[in-house]
């Protein structure tokens, strides 16, 4: 039964996961919470692991949740296939229509407006994922907020610094690398707690 649930949930996540990795997180979180497959804390840990390992984040989450929810490899195979399947079906249709679509629908107002609307909403989905992960378990005292603040500022810094100063900009872009930031936060955690 749990295998059917996993398949249906991750099929749905693949089908409505517009906007790639981060936007998919809020869908995964919604499903995981609904069925109680894992706690908020465990979910954040998975996101952390997904960000420091190669591959698409949605795929990483599917594989991991599938394994931990059922404690079997079969579970992770099923949820991984389920998250990819809608992509295959939709891309199959889209590729067939590819030439037709590009010419005929490029200027169609319904098509253009819907895509723009989805692009806006995706920002909200990502925001919701961040907001719902700010739980008391993950942010247990002021030091968590300090880590959050530092990483957040370093993350948006490349946007704030002007591109004219090439060397500084390069250094800051390197510094804002998610993998580096997660590793540094891990070291900080090891030293602090």
């Amino acid at each position: 039964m749990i295998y059917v649930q996993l398949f249906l949930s991750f099929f749905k996540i693949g089908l409505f996961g517009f906007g790639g990795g981060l936007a998919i997180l809020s869908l995964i979180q919604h499903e995981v919470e609904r069925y109680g497959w894992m706690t908020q804390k465990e979910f954040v840990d998975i996101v952390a692991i997904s960000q420091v390992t190669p591959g698409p984040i949605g795929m990483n989450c599917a594989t991991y949740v599938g394994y931990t929810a059922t404690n079997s490899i079969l579970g992770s195979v099923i949820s991984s296939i389920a998250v990819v399947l809608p992509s295959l079906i939709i891309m199959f249709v889209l590729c067939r229509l590819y030439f037709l679509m590009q010419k005929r629908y490029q200027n169609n107002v319904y098509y253009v407006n819907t895509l723009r609307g989805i692009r806006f909403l995706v920002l909200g989905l990502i925001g919701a994922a961040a907001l719902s992960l700010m739980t008391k378990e993950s942010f247990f005292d002021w030091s968590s907020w300090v880590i959050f603040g530092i990483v957040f500022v370093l993350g948006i810094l490349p946007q704030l610094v002007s591109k004219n100063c090439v060397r500084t900009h390069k250094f800051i872009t390197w510094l804002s690398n998610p993998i580096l930031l997660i590793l540094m936060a891990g070291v900080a955690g090891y030293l602090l707690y």
Partner: protein
Amino acid sequence: MLFQLFWTYLKVGTFTLGGGYAMLPMIQHEVVNRRKWIDEEEFLNMIALAQAAPGLIAVNSAFFIGWRVGQNSPHSQSKLFRILCVLSTILGAILPSFVIILAIAILFSDYKSLPAVEAIFKGVRPAVVALIASPLFRMAKVAGLSYLSALIPIAGALAIWLLGWSPVWLILLLIVSVIGYTWLAERRHK
């Protein structure tokens, strides 16, 4: 040929950290510059298509490349060959991530309770939340968000966070209301 497709995507899947968007420059390097399977313009079309379609961007782009290579090859008459092309790129893209994460999932359940591991993750958790939130500014700029259209993501985020709405229903609601709005605007225009 099939092996080349598989191998190229296996490399992309193994060496790109950080998900779909981080894969695009490497895919461009391998597929456009090195193998010359598609040209620059088609690559941009591919990104547009992979983003417009739901699902993982990496998988969507793998499908497109597999499909195009299958079409352009001398064996393009054979349907089986075209399907195999698509399967090679997709498997290459997802296999590394699947194997690595499965190994971590199996190992991590044993080590999770160690105090050192717990301490590391105590530091990592707030950082992860910050890393989810910080790309929002760049993405808002790219999407061309104005003060008025910013109401869409803000309302969406609050509906999910405070009211517990399902993201799926929000997406459907948005599609329906955008089409309704466009229809009204078109009618008034005439």
